[in-house]
C-alpha cells in the first residue's frame, strides 16, 4: 500500500495502530487479498487471488475439491501465511475478536460442558461469571440454552455444530470464516442451520466467508459468490436477491445454473 494512502487511512481509525494494516479510504473494508499466492513445495494452490470484501458482506467461496478454497480461508484466519502478495485486514474494534474460524467438524472439547465449550470463544476477551453469562446468551440464540450443562457427547451432530457456531460467535467476531461447517449434516438439519446462520448474521452484522461445495447453499445465503478454479477466481457473482429468500425461486435457480456452468462448462 502506498504511503500516501496509509496516512489517509490513519485519520479514519480512532486508535492508531501503526503495525496493523488499516481499513481502506473508500468505505469500511473487512479484508482484501492482493495478488495472493500460496505454494506448498512445487504445488501452487493459490495463484494470484484479488478479493476485496466490505464489512458485513456474506461471501460464499465455491470450487471443486483441491481448488484452494480452504487454503484461502486458512490464510484469512491467519492459520497460514501467503507465499507472496498481501492480505490487508480491517481495523479491530475494542472487545471483539477479529476473525473466528468454524471448522468442518464441531471440534468441541469432550471434557467440557456445552457452556464451557462456548466460553472457549471468549479466551482473552472475558472470564468468570461474565464469560458464562455471555456464553449462555449466545446459546439461547442458537436454541440450546437448556443444554448448557450437558456433555457434548450427548448432543446430535446438528446440535454440536450449533454449539461450535455459538463458540465462534460469542466473541462478536468481525469476520467469521466457515470451512464447510454444514457439510456433514443431513439435508434437513442443514437447511435449519443455514437459516439460523442467516438470522444471526443479519442480527450481528459480521462479515461471513463461507467455503462450501453446495451451490444451492451458496446462492441461498451469500451476497456474493466467488468461484475458484485452479487457484484463481473464475467467477465473482453478486447475488442481490432480497431476504428472506425462498429456496428454489427462479432468481436463485438462474444464478445457481450460472455457477454450475462455470464449474462444469
Amino acid at each position, binding site marked *: 500500500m502506498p504511503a500516501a494512502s496509509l496516512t489517509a487511512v490513519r485519520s479514519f481509525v480512532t486508535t492508531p495502530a501503526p503495525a496493523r494494516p488499516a481499513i481502506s479510504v473508500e468505505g469500511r473494508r473487512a479484508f482484501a487479498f492482493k495478488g495472493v499466492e500460496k505454494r506448498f513445495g512445487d504445488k501452487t494452490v493459490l495463484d494470484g487471488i484479488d478479493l476485496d470484501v466490505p464489512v458485513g458482506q456474506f461471501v460464499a467461496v465455491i470450487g471443486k475439491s483441491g481448488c484452494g478454497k480452504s487454503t484461502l480461508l486458512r490464510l484469512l484466519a491467519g*492459520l497460514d501465511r501467503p507465499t507472496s502478495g498481501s492480505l490487508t485486514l480491517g481495523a479491530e474494534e475494542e472487545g471483539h475478536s477479529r476473525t473466528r474460524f468454524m471448522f468442518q*467438524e464441531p*471440534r468441541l*472439547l469432550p*471434557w*467440557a460442558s456445552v457452556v464451557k465449550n462456548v466460553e*472457549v470463544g471468549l*479466551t482473552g476477551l472475558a472470564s468468570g461469571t461474565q464469560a458464562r453469562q455471555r456464553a449462555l446468551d449466545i446459546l439461547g440464540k442458537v436454541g440450546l440454552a437448556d443444554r448448557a450443562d450437558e456433555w457434548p*457427547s450427548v448432543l446430535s451432530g446438528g446440535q454440536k455444530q450449533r454449539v461450535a457456531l455459538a*463458540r465462534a460467535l460469542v466473541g462478536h467476531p468481525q469476520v467469521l470464516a466457515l470451512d464447510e461447517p454444514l457439510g456433514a449434516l443431513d439435508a434437513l438439519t442443514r437447511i435449519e442451520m443455514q437459516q439460523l446462520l442467516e438470522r444471526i448474521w443479519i442480527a450481528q452484522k459480521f462479515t461471513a466467508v463461507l467455503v462450501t461445495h453446495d451451490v444451492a447453499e451458496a446462492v441461498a445465503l451469500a451476497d456474493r459468490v466467488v468461484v475458484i478454479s485452479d487457484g484463481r477466481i473464475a467467477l465473482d457473482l453478486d447475488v442481490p436477491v432480497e431476504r428472506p429468500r425462498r429456496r428454489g425461486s427462479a432468481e436463485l435457480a438462474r444464478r445457481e445454473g450460472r455457477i454450475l456452468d462455470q464449474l462444469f462448462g
Partner: protein
Amino acid sequence: MSFSTHLRRNGIGWLLPVLVLAGWEVASRAGVMPANVLPAPSAVAEAFWRLTLSGELIRNIGVSTARALAGFAVGGSIGFALGLANGLSTLSRGLTDTTLQMIRNIPHLALIPLVILWFGIDEEAKLFLVALGVFFPIYVNTLLGIQSVDPQLVEMGRVYGMDRRALFFRVILPGALPAIFVGLRYALGIMWLTLIVAETISASSGLGYMAMQAREFLLIDVVVLSILIYALLGKLADSLARLLERLSLGWHPAFQNG
C-alpha cells in the same frame, strides 16, 4: 447412578469370592482338604484375629503400605513428569526415549540381586524396586496419552487464542487423562507385585516377611492370611483408582452409564 444400583453392581462382584470361601470351608470340614495343605477359612479367620490382637498384623500391613506408597510416589511422579516432558517436547523425547525403552525391557525384578548388593535389605531396596516397577507403566501411558490427543482440538485451541498454559490444562492434559488412568491402575498392580517379591526375599518386617516367617514355623493359616490380605489391598488400591477415574472422567461416554 443411585446408591442401591451401585451396591447391587458391586455386590455381584463379591458373590463369587464368598461362594468359593463357603465351598472351601465345607471341603475342609469334610476332610477333603487336609489342614496341612490348605487350612479352613475359619482357621485363617482365627489366625487373623490372633494376629490382630497381638498388633502384629496391623503393624506389618502399615509397614508394607508405607513402602508401597512411598515407592509409588517416587516412581510415579518421575514417570509422570518424564511422560509429560517427552509428550510435549520432541527434544526431550529424542534425548531420553530410546534409553528409557531399553531399560524398560529389563524385568525390574531381575535387578533384585544387584539391589541387595547395593542397598542390603534396607528400606531403600524395596523403595527402589517399587519405584522402578511403577515408573514404566505411568511413563509409557502418560506419553501415549499426550501423543494421542486429537490434533484438531489442539489447532482449535490455538485458533481461539489459548496460550501454552491454557492449551495444556484445557486441551492436552484432559485429553491424555484416560490413558494416564490406565497407566495408574496398571502401576498399582505392579506396585503390590514388586513389594511382595521384595519382602519375601529380603525383609525384616512387612507382610511378605510375615508370610516367610510363618512358613518357617509351618503356620499355614498365617501364610494363607497374608496372601488374602495382599488380594484385599490390591483390590482396595484398584477401587480407589477407579473412583478417581469415575470422578475425573465423568465426560467420557464409557463412564456416563456406568
